[in-house]
């Protein structure tokens, strides 16, 4: 009986596990293998060079600039996006003035806002990046035109052309593009919190601030944590790459102020023909990601509240 059960379970698992091994595990291992070679990416001819690529990483200023920028994005992007998302979702669902029949409700016109917030999510990343690029155009863009219109002729920054501002400009576009999704996600989470809790809190005289921190946030914690990891991966991964690649000077500039790890991997592989070195950078990106998820899981561990 026992044997039969193993066989039975294994039978179901063989196919998915095989697919997983071929398409997920093997590329991972291959990448690690290639990071020890001098593979160019353009010919099958390669040799193993040991830890040379990793030794080079430590000397590479551009790599460290990229690590710095990626970590900045990783620390700030989730905080800003999730805080804004939570704030908007709270205002849409709970934050409104008390009305006669409902215990809680959103601010006036909240259903319209909900659609508006979700709008950027419908647009593809390159479109959003391009739109922001137009807005940041120092010569005829919306932002500088706005400054001019309100009489601030002296304030005409170069936006993406200024190393002090460039990373913030890219970050602003990423926040704008992603916040809508979290508004919807958190709204869904909030709607599953029983109304009685709010009613009780209100009877006790809690204000909006207290309701949010004592009721909404703790009961939404699981969703926030998921969002945090998701947003962190996004900050390290393809999305950061796409935004920087399309928007920034160079791309990656000016003066490496927007260079991020995925972009550097791309440049080393496809521009410089150094795929071996690029996979070494990729492996270090993997390490950063693992450390990040480890920390988030640990910090976020709380007792699950049943309701």
């Amino acid at each position: 009986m026992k044997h039969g059960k193993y066989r039975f379970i294994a039978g179901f698992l063989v196919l998915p596990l095989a697919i997983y091994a071929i398409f997920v595990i093997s590329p991972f291992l291959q990448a690690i293998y290639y990071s020890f070679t001098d593979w160019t990416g353009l010919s099958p001819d390669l040799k193993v060079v040991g830890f040379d690529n990793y030794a080079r990483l430590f000397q590479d200023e551009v790599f460290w600039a990229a690590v710095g920028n990626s970590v900045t994005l990783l620390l700030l992007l989730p905080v800003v996006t999730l805080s804004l998302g939570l704030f908007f979702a709270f205002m849409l669902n709970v934050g409104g003035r008390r009305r006669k029949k409902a215990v809680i409700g959103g601010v006036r016109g909240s259903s319209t806002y909900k659609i508006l917030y979700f709008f950027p999510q419908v647009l593809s990343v390159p479109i959003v990046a391009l739109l922001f690029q137009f807005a940041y155009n120092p010569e005829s863009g919306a932002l500088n035109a706005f400054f001019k219109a309100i009489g601030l002729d002296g304030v005409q920054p170069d936006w993406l052309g200024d190393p002090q501002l460039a990373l913030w400009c890219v970050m602003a576009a990423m926040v704008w593009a992603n916040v809508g999704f979290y508004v919807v996600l958190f709204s869904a989470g909030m709607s599953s919190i029983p109304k009685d809790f709010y009613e009780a809190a209100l009877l006790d005289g809690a204000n909006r601030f207290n309701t949010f921190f004592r009721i909404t946030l703790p009961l939404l914690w699981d969703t926030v944590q998921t969002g945090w990891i998701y947003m962190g991966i996004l900050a390290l991964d393809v999305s950061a790459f796409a935004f920087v690649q399309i928007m920034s000077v160079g791309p990656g500039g000016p003066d490496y102020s927007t260079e991020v790890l995925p972009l550097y991997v791309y440049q080393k592989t496809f521009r410089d023909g150094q795929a071996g070195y690029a996979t070494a950078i990729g492996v270090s990106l993997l390490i950063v990601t693992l450390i990040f998820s480890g920390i988030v899981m640990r910090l976020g561990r709380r007792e699950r509240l049943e309701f």
Partner: protein
Amino acid sequence: MGSTSEFNRRDLVKRAAALGIVAVPAMSVLSACASGGGGAEDKVEKGTKSAKNPLAVNESAGLDVVIFDGGFGDKYAKDAQALYVKAFPKADGKVKLSSTQKIQSTLQPRFNGGNPPDLVDNSGAEQMDFGTLVAKDQLTDLTPLLDAPSVDDPNKKVRDTLRPGVVEMGQFGGKETWILYYAYTVYGVWYSRSNLQKLDAEYPETWDDMLALCAKAKKKGVAGWTYPGKYPYYLPFSLYPFIAKIGGEEVLKKIDNLEPNAWKDPAVKAAFEAYYELYRKGYVLKGSPGLDHLQSQKAWAEGKALFIPNGSWVENESAKQIAKNPHFDLAVGAPSSLSSSDKMPYGTIWASGGEPYIVPRKARNAEGGMELLRIMLSKQSAQNFIKQVSSLTSLNGGTEGLKLPPGLASAQAALQKAGQNIVNPRLQDWYVALQKERIGVGALGEMMAGRMTPDEAITKIQKYADETRDDSSVKKYKR
């Protein structure tokens, strides 16, 4: 319900890990998918050599061509394909031409797998690195093509019908020619004759006149220069020939050869300081450091700035915006003379090949790929190209009897004026990362935005050049 106690989560994790370990030995097999392959050479048989078929193309063999679908489109290549089929009717239906903007991601797997196409236009943002392709022996030597008789005149070799410098550009320090550049680009200072006329001016042949003209324009609220600050490696299009003009072509050669202190040459400093003065005196369009190429070309076409460093593709790329002013009268100027002691005469200009065509080493029908190139280098195809995309080709001539658009006519005149004084800096083909990202974005862009002085920029560039020279992962070239 059976108990699940002997099958808890920890066991599952252990087994998954075991599976991972099993996967390790399999890795060597799997890695063959990404980088392995190659294997036996698989080539079509050669055809019979004749006067009409000097490259001995197999008349019935298929042909596989991949074209970069960029500023020039792919119609010119399709027209040449039709001529090929006409010459080899038995190959009809077996000649495949596809075009893409993503050359590297499309072709990398095919190169790695050992089944590349027969002819590739390796151009655009996803250009495959030539240094690597040559170093890894992935290309076919094009010497047979160059020594074959040309289509128009059987007594003249293809090599002798090309513009000066084209064959040399395709060589990488040896006798073999790996690349044939099909388009021919003139770089320089682009402007509108009518916009200059509004200021009662012509193109300034000396730098003093240039500054005076910029001052005059500034009073009328027009900027002297603009440039794509997002891609500051457009600045060299007029800056490098300016350096050569001041200090002689030797300076550029030293720079290309990554010689120590090549950038510390006084000519470099003089040229940098001249450009920096444009910024310092406020002659550069405000906001230029944040513009991309299309945005800066738009501002320039609208007359907000007089001059822009660019290449001859600008006429095609910004055609719509230029057309808004029917009297625009596009023209290109060579770098102005800084002083009378400049080593090279006025008219010295940068011109070189574009649209690099390659025949991969493992192409099945390499002769066919070369034959298509030979057809493209005929007068008929060259004229077709000039008419379609208003750019010159590497074929010396082909413009007879054609009415050229103003920019192209001006480029043609500039080439004639330059005569032998055509310079061809190679940094942008040999050391892309150094040229674009480090020198361009890291130093020139910073200097023109006023965040770095010329001296600081030169010191930084010299440091970058030294680092590239000492970097064993970058293949080096000499000229």
